[in-house]
């Protein structure tokens, strides 16, 4: 959900930008792949000076961190995993997991239940251990991930297919075994095709037993994290791992300093470049002020600033600055969730009518026009499906400004239009739209939304509440909400991380459509008029479709399955009104001479940033 906050912040800062300032996106990814000819032309050494507006959330604890910036620093620098990513954009393969600490992709048994990873020779932990990484270190990580007392913020729910994971509660997970120092075997209860993605997540990075024994507690472990990547905290050399004082380079809430990990052997690492010798992060500051510092060369990069309207206009129009900005489609969606069991939206024709009539162009221009991303016409960002459905638009309209005629035709088919005039004539159409308080642009978006649907006889009262309250109300059946503003970003590069949390399992904290809710749960909260399937799940449901897609191995065939489900969702179920596929934005100083967008984390790949001085 913190990833949602990032997106929301991005929306906020971009909203004031006039559409005129956008002259198309500018992608600047001069970085090259490992071993390519030009990578040797990129200078190494120097210090990368960075700032960020807010700290990592849980002290770079690989188990607890659920935030893209944290994931990037763990991926690039501190916590290598069995599989990982190249730090490149999707079009250069940056969304595909590659062997990292593993010698190769894992082998899987015929029944899909046993996955075996082999660990490379010569991969080492940094100071103060400086010892070889062994399979037991991975077992430590999975055991710790299973501990609910220590991990309420992370993503253990993705790992429940591992045998004994849900019962372990921090003790030995039955399905994870170190067969020997170099072999890790993971046994599942049910097939889990996303295992390559799951073992590319920071929570599975090896944690040495020495560290687990000394600092098991959440956050504390991150403060003493022993690196497996090219960088480590300054002051790790000779550190007493059992002591209470973290290394000098780890000053939580204030600053971080990373220096080279002497035990990292680049020969064992095909994914990272590690150009700079030292990385400094200072925490805190106001976004525009930090971006001004970048422009003035005081610092090289603001990691989590994105862009303000002012800086975006400057960097997209000033020829001297145009090479210092990167705009790249994020694997994310800005949308409105529809409660498909709440009148009048329990009628699919009403949901379709709203999709037909919404003035997406106005919303897009409000968000900043071209630099803010592309108008979204479906659920899954195309980049996550290998470009499939890129041109798919089930509700086309002239200039994306809405089609009142088609919308009225759709409304006529609805039970809420008794006289068939294309206008809702039921009191249920006098409803509300929830948005976030304190954000004028979010409220303006809601106003555009309300104005758009008015011709359909739908009157939306705009209710602005704080973010926590919005999430609580929109994700609980008892809220009886109809429309909620939302945003979502992937956890790993699979559409499953959209379909599962947003459109399955009913009341799960993220699913504003409540698809997958049981009839019993709905009835208990006063909902009526729905049918249920044999499993007692209220219709519509996509649980079976998700299972079907996941039964296909990762690859083009599975991507096509997700793309088909994307269409089914938009045409048959219509639980969302997609608004925009947002861009990620990075701005850097003249001192940065090499940059690459990391599709996995959605920010610059830190290991691929090189500096001149």
């Amino acid at each position, binding site marked *: *959900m913190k990833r949602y906050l990032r997106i929301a912040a991005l929306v906020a800062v971009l909203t004031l930008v006039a559409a005129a300032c956008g002259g198309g996106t500018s992608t600047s990814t001069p970085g090259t792949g490992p071993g390519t000819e030009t990578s040797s032309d990129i200078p190494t050494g120097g210090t990368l*000076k960075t700032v960020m507006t*807010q*700290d*990592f*959330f*849980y*002290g770079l604890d690989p188990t607890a961190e*659920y935030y893209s910036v944290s994931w990037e620093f763990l991926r690039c620098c501190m916590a290598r995993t069995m599989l990982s990513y190249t730090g490149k954009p999707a079009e250069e393969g940056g969304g595909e997991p590659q062997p990292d600490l593993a010698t190769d992709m894992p082998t899987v048994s015929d029944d899909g239940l046993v996955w075996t990873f082999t660990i490379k020779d010569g991969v080492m932990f940094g100071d103060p251990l400086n010892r070889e990484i062994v399979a037991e270190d991975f077992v430590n990580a999975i055991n710790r991930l299973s501990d*609910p*007392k220590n991990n*309420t*913020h*992370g*993503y*253990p*729910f993705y790992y429940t297919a591992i045998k004994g994971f849900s019962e372990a509660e921090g003790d030995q997970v039955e399905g994870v075994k170190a067969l020997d120092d170099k072999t890790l075997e993971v046994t599942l209860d049910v097939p889990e095709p996303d295992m390559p993605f799951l073992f590319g997540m920071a929570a599975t990075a090896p944690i040495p037993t020495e560290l687990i024994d000394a600092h098991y*507690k*959440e*956050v*504390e472990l991150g403060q003493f994290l022993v690196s497996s990547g090219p960088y480590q905290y300054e002051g790790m050399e000779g550190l007493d791992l059992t002591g209470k004082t973290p290394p000098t380079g780890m000053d*939580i*809430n*204030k*600053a971080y*300093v990373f220096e080279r990990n002497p035990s990292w052997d680049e020969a064992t690492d095909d994914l990272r470049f590690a150009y700079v010798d030292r990385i*400094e992060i*200072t925490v*805190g*500051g*106001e976004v525009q*002020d930090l971006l*001004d*510092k970048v422009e*003035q060369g*005081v610092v090289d990069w603001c990691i989590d600033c994105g862009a303000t309207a002012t800086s975006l206009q400057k960097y997209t129009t000033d020829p001297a600055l145009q090479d210092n900005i990167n705009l790249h489609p994020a694997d994310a969606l800005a949308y409105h969730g529809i409660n498909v069991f709440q009148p009048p939206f329990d009628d699919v024709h009403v949901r379709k009518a709203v999709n037909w009539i919404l003035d997406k162009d106005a919303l897009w221009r409000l968000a900043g026009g071209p630099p803010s991303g592309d108008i979204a016409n479906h659920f899954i960002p195309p980049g996550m499906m290998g470009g499939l459905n890129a041109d798919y638009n089930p509700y086309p309209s002239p200039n994306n400004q809405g089609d009142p005629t088609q919308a009225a035709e759709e409304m006529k088919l609805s039970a809420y239009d008794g006289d068939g005039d294309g206008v809702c004539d039921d009191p249920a159409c006098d409803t509300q739209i929830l948005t976030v308080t304190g954000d004028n642009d979010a409220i303006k978006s809601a106003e555009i939304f309300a104005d758009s649907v008015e011709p359909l006889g739908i009157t939306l009262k705009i209710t602005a*509440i*704080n*973010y*926590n*309250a*919005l*999430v*609580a*109300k929109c*994700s609980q059946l008892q809220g009886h909400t109809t429309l909620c503003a939302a945003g979502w970003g992937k*956890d790993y590069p699979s559409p499953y991380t959209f379909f599962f*949390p947003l459109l399955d399992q009913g009341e*799960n*904290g*993220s699913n504003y459509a409540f698809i997958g809710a049981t009839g019993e749960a709905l009835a208990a909260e006063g909902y009526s008029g729905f049918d249920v399937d044999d499993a007692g799940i209220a219709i519509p449901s996509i649980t079976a479709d998700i299972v079907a897609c996941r039964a296909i191995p990762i690859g083009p065939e599975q991507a096509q399955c997700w793309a088909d489900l994307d269409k089914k969702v938009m045409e048959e179920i219509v639980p969302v009104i997609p608004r925009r596929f947002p861009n990620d934005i990075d701005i850097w100083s003249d001192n940065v001479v090499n940059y690459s967008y990391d599709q996995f984390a959605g920010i610059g790949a830190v290991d691929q940033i090189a500096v001149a001085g």
Partner: protein
Amino acid sequence: MGRYLIRRTLFGILVLVVITQVTFFIFIKLPPGDPAYRLAGKDKSDEVLAQIRHNIGLDQGYWVMYGRFVKGLVPWPGEADEFLDPDIYYSWSNKVEVKEEIVERLPVTVTLTIGAVILWLLMGIPLGILSAVKRRSAADRAGMTFALLGVSIPTFVLGLLLNYVFWYKLGWAPPTGFDLGDSLWQSVWEGKFLLAWITLAVTSAAFYTRVVRGNMLETLSEDYIRTARAKGLSERRVTYKHALRASLTPVVTMLGLDIAGLLGGAVITENIFNLRGIGDYALASLDLTDFPAVMAVTILAAFFIVVANLIVDVIYAALDPRVRYA
């Protein structure tokens, strides 16, 4: 005097207790959003939420929870032997002890406060005296124009303007925030506080100018001043020995409360100049709905106000013989 102090101290404690209750109610009970929701990741299942509530002590009755947080504020026999019990007062996000943050940040706020106070007293009092003594002169009009502008311009506008002009455009001032590894004193020496001091000082100095001028004018028209002049005392002696002391008495009251208010955190100024003091901490904690930090900072700010009130009352009586403790 002893009874007066005891009574005022007890009243101050009562005020603090009321503030703890109000703060607790606002942040724990009032918002419809459950803190556990924010702290949970994407898995907001009932089990996870219950676990989070248990972890942070929000799974008990209202008064039990409130009592726990209040007890944690001060040393308590058999429970904690220090202020801000680290088992209760830690960040719900990154687990950092609130006391640790406050101890690290308070010197920044104190430095900001002291510098700003010195500056605004040096600006405000002389300008006020000058305006009063040279009433209706060009100096008076200039002083009052400054006062009008200073009082009118919001802190955030002045702060951003000063930063834009003197750092971004002219490069005369250093960029905001401390440089990595710099101590507080190094930062002061490098001028990191200068624009922040000026920002705070200008608005307050303007106000003080008006107050001192008004008081001086009122005092200068008193009978005893006329008597002093009639006795042949020099105008300088009349002004500075007789009028000024009486005129400054109300300023002491203002100053005490202003200092206390700033020590509780100059939220906007600290934010603009990236000074990681108490105000910046309060803002960040509010943003994260990090209740233990919010509670601690609120109580700290209230404590400063209560203590300042007490001190001001005592000093006031010392300065003004007409005031008696009752």
